[in-house]
């Protein structure tokens, strides 16, 4: 096309040029993503999703159960010496984890050592397996483990039932959600875990700079997309492309919900952590699994994943693929908390030790051999998966007023 100048057309051309220049300036920071890349980016949203109700938990999604679960979550009386609540390790202000390499538990009392990093509870309601080894198939059955673990709450069904029957407000709340607490202790214990699970299901992480970018890209709003930092865009391109990260860190939660061996050592004091292998064994032996009598699901299809899970040699040393939302807020990393920072995580994948991987395991894992700039970019992208709001000061998601609530002190 040839442009000819004339008195009439000049102002219009200037205006067009300025507009183009302005647009160019605004878009200077937007990479040209290919259609394949845009499709891959689109798969990581939209966010937030609707959290599905758990059909194995009859109080899932019920407001008064969520409120009771929140009370229980922060109540140290779940442990018999009133020393430890769920919130002791899953701290709201730390993205529902504890910031420690390994949880302290009762280790400071000379009773042994916990060997796995505290997982965040954010977005747990979107998961399929729970715990680094996936030894539980519901949040409520997973909640029972720390309650009974001798190095954590060291509690019992009798303790939980006694607490729920003996506290006037809790008993009132229990009655409104589950009926009369005068029932066998194990039933009261499972009910308590289901209330806690109803609360935990509500812990969905907020939208992030990545989500704003993704949505802008998909609706063709290039100016808005260009506000996403160039380093994060380059890191995203690496994440969905050459890095192959999105193969496991898949979908809106950035996890496929399964397990992988990524070459992190699994030796622990006194032996090895068998990871998913032990998780499946534990799952199958768990009386509280979806196949057991404590599940509220009438449809046998709800237990399908537990019925069909396969125990295989390669499960040895596999650990849960964690979701990456709010990952910048959940250091340290890996099942054993052995990597202190996101920079360390990126370095791990850049220098991956293939000798540590299963010979029959994934063939997608290769050292990325990142340049210093690429490593910075990948880290920038990972950081963009965290919301930039202030830390949550308290759980505070239920917002339900209950006739059981204690009157305010005068």
């Amino acid at each position: 096309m040839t442009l000819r100048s004339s008195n009439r057309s000049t102002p219009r051309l200037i205006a067009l040029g300025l507009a183009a220049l302005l647009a160019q300036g605004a878009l200077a920071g937007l990479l040209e993503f290919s259609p394949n890349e845009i499709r891959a980016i689109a798969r990581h949203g939209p966010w937030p999703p609707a959290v599905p109700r758990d059909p194995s938990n009859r109080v899932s999604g019920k407001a008064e159960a969520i409120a009771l679960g929140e009370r229980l979550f922060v109540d140290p009386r779940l442990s018999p010496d009133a020393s430890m609540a769920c919130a002791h390790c899953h701290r709201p202000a730390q993205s529902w984890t504890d910031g420690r390499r390994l949880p302290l538990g009762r280790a400071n009392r000379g009773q042994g050592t916990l060997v796995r990093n505290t997982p965040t509870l954010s977005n747990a309601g979107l998961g399929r397996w729970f715990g680094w080894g996936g030894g539980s198939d519901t949040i409520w059955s997973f909640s029972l483990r720390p309650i009974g673990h001798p190095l954590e709450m060291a509690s019992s069904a009798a303790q939980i039932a006694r607490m729920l029957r003996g506290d006037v407000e809790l008993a009132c709340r229990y009655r409104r959600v589950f009926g009369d607490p005068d029932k066998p202790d194990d039933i009261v214990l499972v009910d308590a875990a289901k209330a806690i699970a109803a609360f935990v299901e509500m812990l969905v992480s907020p939208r992030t700079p990545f989500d704003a970018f993704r949505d802008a890209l998909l609706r063709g709003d290039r100016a808005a997309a260009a506000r996403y930092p160039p380093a994060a865009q380059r890191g995203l391109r690496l994440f969905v492309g050459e890095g192959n990260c999105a193969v496991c860190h898949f979908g809106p939660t950035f996890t496929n919900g399964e397990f992988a061996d990524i070459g992190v050592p699994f030796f622990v004091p006194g032996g090895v952590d068998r990871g998913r292998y032990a998780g499946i064994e534990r799952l199958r032996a768990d009386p509280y699994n979806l196949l057991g009598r404590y599940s509220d699901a009438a449809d046998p299809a709800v237990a399908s994943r537990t019925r069909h899970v396969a125990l295989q040699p390669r499960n040895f040393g596999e650990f849960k693929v964690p979701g990456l939302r709010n990952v910048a807020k959940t250091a340290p990393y890996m099942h054993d908390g052995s990597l202190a920072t996101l920079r360390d995580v990126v370095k791990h994948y850049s220098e991956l030790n293939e000798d540590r991987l299963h010979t029959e395991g994934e063939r997608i894992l290769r050292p990325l051999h990142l340049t210093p700039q690429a490593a910075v970019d990948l880290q920038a992208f990972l950081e963009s998966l965290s919301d930039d709001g202030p830390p949550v000061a308290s759980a505070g998601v239920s917002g339900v007023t209950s006739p059981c609530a204690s009157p305010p002190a005068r």
Partner: protein
Amino acid sequence: MRGILAGLLLALAASAVACESPGAGYARLESPGFVLWMATQPAPPPVGAEFAVDAVLCAKGQAQAEAVRFDAWMPTHRHGMNSRPSVTARGDGRWRADGYLFHMPGRWQFKFEIDTPDGRERLTRDIEIE
């Protein structure tokens, strides 16, 4: 390599109807002795959620199937699924396998192994999952 025993098929007799497409969405697989039609429910199969496979098997001549195994794997990753489907016979050479789960995007391969008195026949179908 993991196999899933579908169960014994007693002298599977192929009907003429079964050798025709059972309906829209079915893919045709063929080995020397058999034709197998397969479809996933839902289609396409999702990543990270269970799905089922409906299959219709018929013999092309006098071939007899003694057992059928259902499975899937990722050839380039050299690993299979994390689940082991359960297979139910629905009569007339029709089968439903529940409990498939593709836990990654990429190229997956459905595998069907048919044991006959003369040996094993294999049928495969590749599918790209996004």
